[in-house]
């Protein structure tokens, strides 16, 4: 997804302005001229300068006929759009359900779903998903003592 530089500049301008606005709430210390707000304000000023330059550049490109935003050609092919979206969606699903379902069932389900969507044969996808899930649980959960969520399997593990 390519966005015109002017749009990027506008977003940065808003972000930098919000940054400066938030620094006005930082506490000031009497007798101390250089407080916690100084560095963020300098950075935000730098961002504003960059944002303005980007906007100038973007508007010039716009006059040459560049669109405000352009999608890569694969966005018109639904299969590839889903392929692109399933990755972040899998992460979101993990964030939402990890606590209730637990690592082992959820990781297995997510791996299996992704394998099958990408066109893997079920005969190969099933054992690989199961083995990878257990291996990862053993390595991180048991060896490295990472508190991976247990969820449904709380009583068994």
């Amino acid at each position, binding site marked *: *997804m*390519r*966005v015109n530089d002017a749009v*990027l500049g506008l977003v*940065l301008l808003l972000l930098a302005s919000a*940054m400066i606005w*938030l*620094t006005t709430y*930082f*506490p000031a210390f009497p007798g*101390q*001229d*250089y*407080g*916690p707000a*100084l*560095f*963020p304000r300098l*950075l*935000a000023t730098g*961002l504003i300068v*960059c*944002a303005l*330059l*980007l906007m100038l*550049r973007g508007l*010039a490109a716009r006059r*040459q006929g560049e669109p405000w935003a352009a999608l*890569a050609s*694969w966005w018109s092919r639904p*299969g*590839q759009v889903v*392929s*692109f979206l*399933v*990755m*972040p969606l*899998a*992460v*979101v699903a*993990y*964030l939402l359900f*990890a606590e209730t379902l637990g690592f082992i069932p959820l*990781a297995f389900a*997510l*791996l299996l779903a*992704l*394998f099958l969507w*990408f*066109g*893997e044969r079920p005969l*190969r*996808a099933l054992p*690989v998903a199961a083995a*990878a899930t257990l291996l*990862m649980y053993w390595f*991180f959960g048991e060896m*490295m003592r*990472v*508190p991976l969520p247990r969820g449904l399997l709380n009583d068994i593990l």
Partner: protein
Amino acid sequence: MDAVLAAFGLVFDPSVMLVILGAAVFGMFVGAMPGLTATMATALLVPVTFFMDPVPSLGAIVTATAMAIFAGDIPAAMLRMPGTPASAAYADESFLMARKGQLDLNLGVNVVFSALGGIVGVVFLVLCAPALAELALNFSSFEYFWLACLGLTCAVFIGTGNPLKGFVALLIGLSVTCIGIDPAAGVPRFTFGNVDLMSGVNFIAVMIGAFAVSELLRGAVALRQEGHVVVPQVGNVFRGVGGVMRRYWLNFIRGSLMGTLIGALPGAGADIAAWVSYAMAKRFSRTPEKFGTGHVEGVVEAGASNNSAVAGAWIPALVFGIPGDSITAIVIGVLYMKGMNPGPTVFTENPQFIYAVFIIFILANIIMVPLGWVAIKSMKQVLRIPRTLLLPLILLFCIVGAFAMTNSSYGILLMLIFGVLGWFMEENGIPVAPMILGLVLGEMLEQNFMTSMIKSDGAWLPFFERPIAGALGIMTLLVWLLMLGRGARAAWRRPAEA
């Protein structure tokens, strides 16, 4: 001397050797797999090494990156697909050599000169780092402030084709470090009362997002377009390498020196070293017309260059805490996690760890030759592993790794946000590396800036009064002026053309 002996003892421990061997195989695999980069290998290694002692964890990173940079040459020659960006500069040349029937020679040259180039880089690391550390012991906040400024400017200046967008990335990275408790006054900033944000932005989780998840997003789109690949047969790769060495030794030396230097400059790593060295080989060649037809000269120079850059990048990282490339940016995060704050004091406080890193670097470059040979021979099997399985597995690994960094879903959320952001930035020509460098150096920059401001009571003159600080400051200002001048000239020219 005791420290050197202690270092040998630390390295030649069976479990450490096992970790190094495992990391070497992992690095070879990631490097040989098109689409997986050396930086990604490092980011994925960090969660695994999180619970290890300093020496095995640093050893794993050193070995894996050295192997990955070499292994990227193999698919470049066989399939014209560079395994890592560092091999992109001479992928065409290598592939043309293979088409001329010189695949064996090309792979032999790649593995031998990668290892030799790597060793030259390590020699410079061993010689330069302690000497520079001695010098750096006298540095005050002024010197460190300018050093950080110069490093970050270099990162924008050399590392990117578009300095303006490089600066945007850098400022975003620096701004993100402001989230959390402010290092000078201890005030929470931009936390919105959130406990997770109070702890700051976990830098490894961000790296996993920006370097691994964003790559997976790109990979997922391309997944269904890939056809079947045919891996050619490989014979005796070491035949004829000696002849190449006798003929092109000058290229080898020039490439290794250039690579070390570029690696040591902040922000530019192995990939830029390879491009520069390839261009240099062509420029100074007696037969420049042969370049682009499958000529070994550029492969020698660039192949040595990118591996020496891997070691060169460690020089500023260990001595000043300023990363030479995105891999050492991760290393600095690891050093902090292990309680070995990078900087000159690490050479006096923990010299055995530093020597251990040196030893592992040399070892890694030596075992590169036999392991590289194995990797070349087993390339067929490596490429047979379907990406349909690989991408989801890496994604799950990223999730678990990011979770392990914070032991909460905060790490995963950070990974997701920066994964999508990294993908979007790359799509729009905004480089990711300066952002990561800003993120690593932000706190150090602010701390030294605030300390200096308080010491000088707001005056600018003390920033230039000490000799080294003055020199660094003037250098930084000159680079800034140069950039402004260039920008102004470009802006002046464009309306004239239009």
